């Protein structure tokens, strides 16, 4: 049945040796990225199952409390107060048995992306005029950038630097609070608790399903890349590789569309008729009411202080 050339078996010693060839290719990097994501999801899930302070609270109380704190934080203009709230989030992370080092790293990893781009221009006198702190460049009189007139010299201002620090700190505090909510609550309960703040059932269901299928599609992508790695005998040109990636993206999209259709069929088959019915399994305890009341009170006090109604 098999052709003659296939009957040849030749296993001789390899004339080459395995040597390091520099940086990892995009296939390797993508596989690493996928494993990184799965690992992070796993670590977050393990934190949410620990018996810490926040894990013991009803997710609805936690969601409302954290939202209140985030709202109040966004109104605070005082750096000391922001540092105080940030320290509070660290304290709660510690009390919830979360590795504080991991927590800080996780929050500050995103800050340069969220806040850095917005905050960096603020420190220069082009955007916020003020007292010079550090000189950057002298442009001379009548400098222009296209139609924009530039000042004689560009420097970092004291006021700009303070505003940038306050802005960054505010973002960091808000992100800390939200990350705290995410890693102390299992995903499925977190999504469900969104119902309490008025998110319609159908969005909650869609969110839950989307989260569940991320893992499946992630696995599909991982398998494709691993299969590609297994069959890559020699490196190909960048355009060839890009074409391959484009093709796989299209394939993943088609697979996900096909799957969504089948998932819908599976739902119909079990009686789904467009009206979403989900189980509410939450029970509020006294401690949840106390926690909610405390968080809301703290938020009110923060707002009052930041507007100089209460002076400290």
């Amino acid at each position, binding site marked *: 049945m098999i052709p003659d050339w296939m009957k040849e078996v030749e296993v001789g010693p390899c004339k080459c040796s395995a040597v390091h060839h520099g940086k990892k290719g995009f296939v390797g990097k993508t596989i690493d990225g996928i494993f990184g994501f799965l690992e992070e999801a796993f670590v977050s899930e393990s934190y949410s199952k620990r018996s810490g302070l926040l894990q013991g609270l009803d997710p609805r109380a936690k969601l409302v409390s954290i939202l209140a704190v985030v709202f109040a934080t966004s109104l605070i203009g005082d750096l000391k107060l922001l540092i105080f709230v940030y320290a509070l989030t660290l304290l709660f992370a510690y009390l919830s048995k979360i590795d504080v080092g991991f927590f800080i790293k996780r929050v500050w990893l995103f800050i340069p992306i969220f806040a850095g781009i917005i905050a960096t221009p603020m420190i220069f006198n082009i955007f916020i005029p003020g007292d010079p702190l550090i000189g950057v460049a002298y442009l001379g009189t009548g400098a222009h950038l296209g139609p924009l007139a530039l000042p004689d010299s560009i420097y970092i201002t004291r006021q700009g630097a303070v505003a940038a620090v306050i802005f960054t700190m505010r973002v960091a505090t808000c992100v800390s609070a939200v990350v705290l909510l995410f890693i102390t609550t299992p995903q499925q309960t977190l999504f469900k608790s969104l119902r309490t703040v008025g998110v319609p059932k159908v969005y909650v269901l869609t969110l839950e399903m989307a989260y569940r299928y991320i893992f499946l599609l992630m696995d599909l992508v991982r398998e494709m890349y691993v299969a590609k790695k297994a069959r890559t005998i020699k490196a190909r040109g960048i355009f060839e590789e890009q074409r391959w990636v484009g093709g796989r993206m299209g394939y993943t999209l088609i697979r996900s569309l096909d799957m969504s259709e089948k998932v819908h069929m*599976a739902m119909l088959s079990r009686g789904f*008729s467009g009206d979403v019915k989900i*189980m509410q399994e939450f029970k509020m305890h006294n401690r949840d009411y106390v926690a909610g009341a405390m968080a809301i009170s703290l938020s009110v006090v923060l707002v009052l202080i930041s507007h100089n109604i209460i002076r400290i």
Partner: protein
Amino acid sequence: MKTIFDLRNVSYSYVGKIDALKDVSLKIGLGEHVSIIGSNGSGKSTLLAILNGLIYPTSGDFYAFDNQITEEVFDSIKDNEFRTYFRTKVGFVFQNSDVQLFSPTVFQEIAFGPLQLNISPQEVTTRVENVLEMMQITKLRDRSPHTLSGGEKKKVCIASVLVNNPDVLLLDEPSAGLDPRTQLWLVELLQELGAAGKTIITATHDLEIIDQISKRAIVMGEDHRVKKDGPTIEVLDDMALLLSVNLVHEHMHFHGKTVHEHIHAHIDGHKHEHGNN
């Protein structure tokens, strides 16, 4: 025996071009145990999807519980009593477990069906707990579907259908990818459900299990038509038929140091004579 499904000259083609079923006529009675067998792409899964009212014949008529099933009846936005009745009575275990497991946890997955039936949350919880226990998967209760093994996923899928207590069970390749122990467990479960009076319709190409789970076999040919509809034993004995629909094949294999070729299917005790080549 009361007829529950009645297909009259049903054909189905995907996007009007790719034929999946051609001129299929058959009746299935309440309490019957039927296997639909055929090679890959012969139309087994399409037939099951039609029986579950998920897709509709391109031509021909399909009647279920004495009502004609049409797109107009089934796909209406407004709630309709017959559809609810049908969905309660007929359960479908999909071939790909992942399309059926769309909830975040095993518990919620199994609770999805009964919740659609407007049962009180307490009763839903009791039912789910019972089914978890019956299927011996209580320990998986709070796990996410993506962390389960293939066999565990299949068990959760079956549990999520059985929890609605359907009278008719449609199963698409239920034994595919299962280890021998889980396969045996599945066969025993289907036998038990069959003995309880459920109608069980299984699409498969695993000839090893069909005589254990069904008394009647419907053979689908590669031309998407029904080639034979009769007692399972008779179908399994008809080697010429099985060869023609690509369910058995000429096969070379080893017995100790002896190599020989013969017609082969994965049926218990298939007969062959050893040659000395």
